[in-house]
């Protein structure tokens, strides 16, 4: 591998991005969408500035005091420092296979599989990297938050087996076709999926019972014989 001056968030060649979108028109480049939104924001700011100038001149002509200049606003457009592509669920498998197998892309290394809970929607995230070309991208797939299901990629990259189990454990995303989908970090009887934004922790029953018995022991009030732990 040649030493490179890759930007911190990674690099994906624009010509390959164009090829990907040509092959799959449904795929959306998040950074490009953000760029368009930013341009629209700047156009709007210019328009506002122009209107303000007109008002100033009108006020001058009518002899009134000049109006206040408009407040400077920061654009609320997200920054995508890592090349990010939004892929609909219908073509997701096809896109992943294409990215892995096409010689120009050769994204043979899957860094991680995860998800983001946006409260109103959910996105599955995948980070792919090429050991051959050293380019990388993030793939984001919107899924139904109430019933998150997505096809597995563990047959394409073995490493996805554990990552998908982790995401299932912490987010409740069901990976269809996964060979062994069960909890990995938490215990099998755990309730809920902790990384979801609406998760509320509840002590398990045995812990509540244990605490009750200990508390009564400390306070000297013995529970009835039949209830002792």
């Amino acid at each position: 591998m040649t030493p490179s001056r890759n930007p911190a968030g990674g690099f994906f060649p624009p010509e390959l991005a164009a090829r990907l979108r040509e092959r799959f028109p449904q795929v959306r480049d998040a950074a490009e969408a953000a760029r368009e939104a930013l341009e629209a924001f700047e156009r709007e700011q210019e328009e506002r500035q122009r209107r303000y100038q007109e008002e100033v001149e009108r006020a001058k002509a009518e002899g009134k005091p000049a109006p206040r200049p408009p407040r400077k606003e920061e654009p609320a457009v997200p920054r995508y420092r890592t090349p990010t592509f939004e892929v609909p669920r219908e073509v997701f498998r096809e896109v992943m296979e294409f990215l892995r197998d096409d010689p120009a892309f050769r994204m043979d290394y899957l860094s991680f599989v995860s998800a983001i809970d946006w409260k109103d929607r959910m996105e599955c995230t995948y980070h792919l990297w090429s050991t051959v070309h050293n380019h990388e991208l993030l793939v984001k797939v919107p899924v139904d938050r109430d019933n998150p299901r997505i096809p597995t990629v563990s047959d394409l990259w073995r490493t996805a087996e554990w990552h998908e189990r982790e995401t299932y454990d912490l987010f409740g995303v069901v990976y269809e076709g996964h060979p062994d989908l069960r909890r990995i970090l938490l215990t099998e009887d755990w309730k809920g999926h902790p990384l979801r934004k609406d998760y509320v922790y509840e002590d398990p029953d045995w812990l509540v019972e244990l605490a009750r018995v200990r508390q009564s022991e400390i306070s000297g009030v013995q529970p009835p014989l039949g209830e002792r732990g």
Partner: protein
Amino acid sequence: MRSLRTEELILNMGPQHPSTHGVLRLLVTLDGENIVEVQPDIGYLHSSVEKMMEHRNYTQNIALADRGMDYLAALVNEMAILRAAETLADVPVPERARYIRTIFMELQRLASHLLWLGTYGIDLGAFTAFLWCMRERELIMDLFEATTGGRLHHVYFRLGGVNEDLPPGWTDRCREFCHYFLNRLDEYHRLLTGNPIWQARTQGVGVLTREQAIAFGACGPVARASGLQWDVRKSHPYEGYDRVDFRIPVYTEGDCYARYLVRMDEMRESTRIILQCLDQMPDGEVRAPRVPLNLKVPPGEVYTRVESPRGDLGVHLVSTGGETPWRVKIRAPSFVNLHALTEMMKGWKVADIIAILGSIDIVLADVDR
């Protein structure tokens, strides 16, 4: 002759076992003495660092990353969080601070590899290695303590630099240590590299091919011992790494011995990096002015990586513009390397479990997070 009835035996190893270096349980399926399958059972140290990070600001998250993840490479964890936050928020970092960070991360790598070498030595019955490695590691701990005040958990890096400048005389002490350590490294080689017992236990054992390493997402010394020439310090340079000259050690055998050699070579390269940084380091500020402690990171997403002693440590940071991140995904190198272990172990004898498990150098706090 009546044939004997045979069946597979499931051996439970851990969660309390001296050779698992943490709380790991292995379910080993044995056919006689041969390993059929290994299923690691993890999660005993799970503390949901990712969830906790969503409720803390970025300065607090530095301390959390320091403690909650890989406790043998605390400074590299701090850098992982910082790299993501600084990239997304465009925080400037003074040149001197970049060099100081590089020096400390490499010292951390030395300390981590030394601990690995010592404990791996004990795993394989070489007690001397442990005593020697601990002796050198203590000197690194002293260097840490003199600057950061901490030995394991430092919280030394800050948004836009480091907490404070190096104390007077520190660079000379560090340089002295590096020259001393290079001699010691030759001693380790004399002790272990040509040792017939060491070679018999590690050579050809637990082979992971290059294709398997890529498929399992193996990283760090494990991937480099399998012939994958890849180091985040070269492929995505950060801090001072594009300004110093160093080599990525690569071996193609993919066995435990190759993993040992990669780490030994890495220690030499790390020492070279430290010496070069000490020579090149400019004077000046160590912390960018006007970076608030409760920095608001603009909305957006970024995935950045750093090279931890165990491999590619990635952070996917999602911000909605607040003081706390919306979502932090930590891609832990030990997690993927432990998954690759299931493939490495297949077909080896029960006595090789310890040799193979020790060679991938996992930290369970990093696996479970």
